[in-house]
């Protein structure tokens, strides 16, 4: 059953300040909508619960990519196409551009935003594993002020985030100090375009003379939120690339992931594939 569109309120403020003021003044929660690639699907299917929405589409204060000597800062309302087209992002943060390239289709990438992908908080979303592997920071804004927190602390539990009712995700900051790191990303799904991941893993690591000095692993569809695989990372720190190390990493990933059975895959398949992906990465080092 299609939703009755007359039951929904949508307002499109002309500036970020105006949007934040609306959020601050309203006693009930407004749901932000940017490219609509998630919420409009729910509307079409007659299951869009929030009745008050606020449009962030094309708000210029949220749609930008700024490059400083130390960081690349991506406005939350930047689309996946904006990310794929940006020369510094594609050169220095290639696995983010890669993840953007297999998010939905070209038409979805022209509308879907990085901020929406994060705030929607799906455990299967395409960009979060990469942002976790790059150890991104997220900046949240409200009329009370601005705060920046590590992205790894943003997802609290299934679909619950650190975002307060009057806050918006402003931007995502990627630190440019990743010279000499090896990166890896792999999405396992029925196809790249349009399909939602069964499992996805993104890794940023550095080795020195065959020893793993630093490693960050971001994962999709292996826990109730996008997640860093901390136990697996710890099992690999200061270890040489050797069969015993790979065995320990495989055991660690099985211990810390809690995949589920759903329409796209089974928990067992997800666990085995996740371990295989870690092993595939380690074999390339």
């Amino acid at each position, binding site marked *: 059953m299609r939703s009755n569109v007359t039951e929904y309120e949508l307002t499109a403020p002309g500036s970020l300040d105006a949007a934040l003021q609306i959020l601050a003044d309203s006693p009930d929660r407004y749901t932000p909508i940017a490219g609509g690639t998630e919420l409009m*699907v729910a509307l*079409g*299917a007659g299951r869009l619960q929030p009745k008050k929405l606020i449009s962030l589409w*094309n708000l210029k204060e949220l749609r930008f990519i700024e490059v400083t000597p130390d960081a690349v800062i991506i406005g939350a309302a930047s689309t996946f196409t904006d990310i794929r087209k940006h020369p510094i992002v594609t050169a220095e943060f290639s696995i983010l551009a890669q993840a953007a390239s297999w998010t939905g*289709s*070209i038409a979805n990438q022209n*509308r879907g935003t990085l901020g929406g992908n994060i705030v929607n908080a799906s455990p299967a979303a395409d960009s979060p594993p990469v942002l976790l592997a790059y150890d991104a920071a997220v900046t949240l804004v409200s009329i009370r002020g601005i705060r920046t927190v590590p992205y790894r602390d943003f997802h609290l539990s299934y679909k619950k985030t650190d975002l307060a009712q009057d806050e918006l995700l402003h931007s995502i900051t990627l630190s440019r100090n990743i010279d000499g790191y090896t990166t890896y990303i792999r999405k396992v799904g029925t196809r790249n375009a349009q399909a939602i991941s069964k499992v996805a893993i993104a890794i940023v690591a550095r080795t020195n003379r065959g020893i793993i000095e630093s490693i960050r692993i971001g994962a999709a569809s292996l826990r109730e939120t996008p997640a860093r695989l901390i136990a697996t990372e710890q099992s690999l720190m200061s270890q040489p690339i050797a069969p015993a190390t790979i065995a320990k990493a495989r055991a660690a990933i099985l211990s810390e992931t809690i995949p589920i059975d759903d329409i796209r895959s089974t928990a067992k398949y997800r666990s085995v594939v996740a371990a295989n992906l870690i092993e595939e990465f380690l074999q390339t080092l």
Partner: protein
Amino acid sequence: MAGFEMSGQIQLTINGKEKTVETPPMKRLLDVLREDLHLTGAKEGCGEGECGACAVLMNGDLVNSCLIPILQTQGAEITTIEGIAIDKKLHPIQQCFLEQGGAQCGICTPGMILATYHLLEKTPQPTLLQIQEGLNGNLCRCTGYMRIFNAVHAAAAKATSQSETQ
């Protein structure tokens, strides 16, 4: 009748003509095109942004009109399949789809044509991989895609030979 008072005026440009529609802000662009403006070229397939049958151009970008609340089109330029033909003559892309058998039942065709138009604007001489990516959000259940890819190749070749002779 909650929300009844929420209807508002949206001004947008459709296929080069300025239009004003009075509509609730969350009404989908697809429904405004088909119901309010009687432009039935854009089709509803899946209604969830996966099939591309409702694809149109918004300010030159390929988008799925089933996923756009009409309020977000305020001031935008929309091109639908009805705006692709030139002076009632088929656009070269349309002609190539016709000649190469790139259309059968026709439901996906408007979206395929617009996705092709968008692709060739950005990549005039696409490789097969680039064609596959450019059309990756458009599903067809008749052709098996090969004739569609052939049509895109032919359209790209035609556009290039025309620009060389000009």
